[in-house]
C-alpha cells in the first residue's frame, strides 16, 4: 500500500514566554504513515494531544518539529511561514464539534464547501442529495442545526466533508458526544460510505472498541507528551457487524492488547 500521508518526527510545544519555564512538549517524536485507502484509528487518553496532531496535519496549527509528506510531496516542514488549511481541499476534517454554520439549513451547510469553492451546479446538488439520502437526513434539508438532534448534526457535518471528495479525511472523535445507540449507527454509516469510496481516513478516538470496530490498523498514543505507544493491525475481516463487534473472533484479544498499551 502506497503511503498517502507520512508523519516524520513530529513535535509540538507552545511558544516559550519570557520569564517562564520552557513549555512542555504536547507531541514528541511522532512518526507514522497512512496508506492510500486505509482507515487508521488513533486511540489515546483524553488530553493526549490527539486534536493537536490532527490540527497540525490539517494545517490549522503549526508543528514545532518534524515534517509531513502528503502523497509524496513535503507539505509541512520546520520554519514553514504560512499555513495552508485543508491543503487546497485535499484534506477534509470532521471535528469533534460539528461546526455547522448555525444560520444555514442542513442542505446549505452541506453545499457550503462547494459554494465557496466556486459555485454549485446540478451535479453538486445531485451529489448532496445522494449523500443526504445515504445518511438518512431526507426530510431535514430545510432544518437549522439547532433543530436537529446530535446524531443528525454529526451526519450533516460528515457529509459536508464527503461532498467535495477530499482524498484524505481526518476525524477527531466525531461521535464522542452522542449516545451509544446513535454512535453505533453513525459508525455503520461511516463504514458503509467508506466501503463505497475508499478514502484515506485518520480517525481519532478515546474509545478502544470504536478504534477496533472501524480501523484497519490502530495506533495507541501515550499521555503527554503524546508518543506512539503501540501499533496493532486489526485482524477482523470486513464487512463487520458493528453491533456484535464484541462477539467476533479476535476482538477480545486485540482489545486486551490495546488496553495494555493505553496507560
Amino acid at each position, binding site marked *: 500500500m502506497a503511503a498517502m500521508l507520512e508523519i516524520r518526527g513530529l513535535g509540538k510545544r507552545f511558544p516559550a514566554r519570557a520569564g517562564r519555564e520552557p513549555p512542555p512538549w504536547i507531541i514528541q517524536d511522532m512518526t507514522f504513515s497512512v496508506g492510500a485507502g486505509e482507515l487508521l484509528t488513533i486511540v489515546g487518553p483524553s488530553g493526549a494531544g490527539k486534536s493537536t496532531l490532527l490540527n497540525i496535519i490539517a494545517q490549522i496549527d503549526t508543528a514545532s518539529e518534524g515534517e509531513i509528506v502528503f502523497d509524496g510531496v513535503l507539505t509541512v516542514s520546520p520554519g514553514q511561514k504560512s499555513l495552508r488549511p485543508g491543503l487546497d481541499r485535499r484534506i*477534509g476534517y470532521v471535528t469533534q464539534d460539528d461546526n455547522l454554520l448555525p444560520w444555514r439549513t442542513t442542505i446549505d451547510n452541506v453545499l457550503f*464547501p462547494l459554494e465557496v469553492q466556486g459555485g454549485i451546479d446540478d451535479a453538486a446538488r445531485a451529489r448532496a442529495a445522494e449523500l443526504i439520502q445515504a445518511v438518512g437526513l431526507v426530510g431535514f434539508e430545510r432544518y437549522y442545526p439547532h433543530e436537529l438532534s446530535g446524531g443528525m448534526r454529526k451526519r450533516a457535518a460528515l457529509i459536508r466533508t464527503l461532498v467535495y471528495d477530499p482524498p484524505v479525511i481526518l476525524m477527531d472523535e466525531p461521535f464522542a458526544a452522542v449516545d451509544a445507540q446513535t454512535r453505533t449507527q453513525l459508525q455503520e454509516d461511516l463504514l458503509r460510505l467508506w466501503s463505497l469510496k475508499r478514502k484515506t481516513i485518520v480517525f481519532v478516538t478515546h474509545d478502544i472498541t470504536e478504534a477496533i470496530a472501524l480501523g484497519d490498523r490502530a495506533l495507541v498514543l501515550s499521555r503527554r507528551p503524546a508518543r506512539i505507544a503501540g501499533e496493532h493491525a486489526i485482524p477482523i475481516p470486513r464487512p463487520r457487524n458493528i453491533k456484535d463487534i464484541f462477539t467476533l473472533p479476535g476482538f477480545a484479544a486485540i482489545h486486551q492488547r490495546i488496553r495494555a498499551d493505553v496507560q
Partner: protein
Amino acid sequence: MSSAEFAADLPEGRAVSRKIIIVGGRIALALALLLAWEWGARAFGPLFFAPPLETALRIVEMAGNGKLLTDIAATMRVSTIGFAIGCLAGVGLPFLLRLSPRATEAIEPFILASQGIPKYALTPWLILWFGIGDAPKAIVVTLFVFYIVFITVSAGMRNTDQRLINMARILGAPEHIIARKVIWVSLLPFFFTGLKVALPRAVSAAIVGEFLVATEGVGFSIERARQLSDTTGVFAGIVVAVALVLIINGIVNGLERRALKWRPVERDMQL
C-alpha cells in the same frame, strides 16, 4: 421586559386575570398621564403647558398644511445621509482592521478615546466650515452612528467562533468569502444591536442638530416655536419627535426578528 415572564408559572386562570390587571393598569396609567398633562395646562397656564387636545389639533393642522411632512422629510434626509455614511464606515473599518492585528492594536485605542468628545459640541464649528445646510448635522449624525456601529461590529467580530473560521478555511473558502459568509453573518446579531441603538439615535441627533442650525425639520420647528413662545408648537413638535423615534425603534425591532430567525432563542447583548 414583558409581562409574559411573570405570568409563566401561574395557573391559567390566575395568569389570565393577571394579564387583565396589567393591561388595565397600563390603560389607567396612560389616562392618568394624559389627565396630569391636562391638569398641568390648567394649573400653569398656556405659556408653560399646551393642553393635550390643543396639541393634537396642532399636529392635525400641521399634517393638513403639509408642514408635518416637510419637517419629517427634512429630518429624515439628514438622518439617512448621516446614518448611511456612519454605518458604512462603522462596518467597513473593523473588516479593514481585521487584515492587520498590528494596525488594530495601534489605532483602536484612539478611536475609543475619541468617543468621549461631545459630538453635538462640534456643530457650531462645523457650521463655520459647511454653512447652515444639511452638512453639519449630517456629520454629527455620522459620528454618532459610526461609533455605535464600529463598537458593536468589532465586538461581534471578536465573538465569531474561531472554529467556524478554521472549518471554512479547511473547506477551501478564500478569506473574502469567509469575511462575508462566516464572519459577517455571525456578527449580524451584534450589528442589529448596534442598529437598534444607532437608527433612533441618528434621528434624535438630527433633531437636536436642527435645534442648533436649520431652516426646516422637526427640531427646527420645536426650537423656533420656543423662541416665539408658541408653547403649543413646542408640545406638538416634541410629540412628533418622540413618535418618529419610537416608530423607527419599532421598525428596527421587527426587521431584526425577521433577519435572525435562524437563531434558537432571542438573546440580546446587554447594553
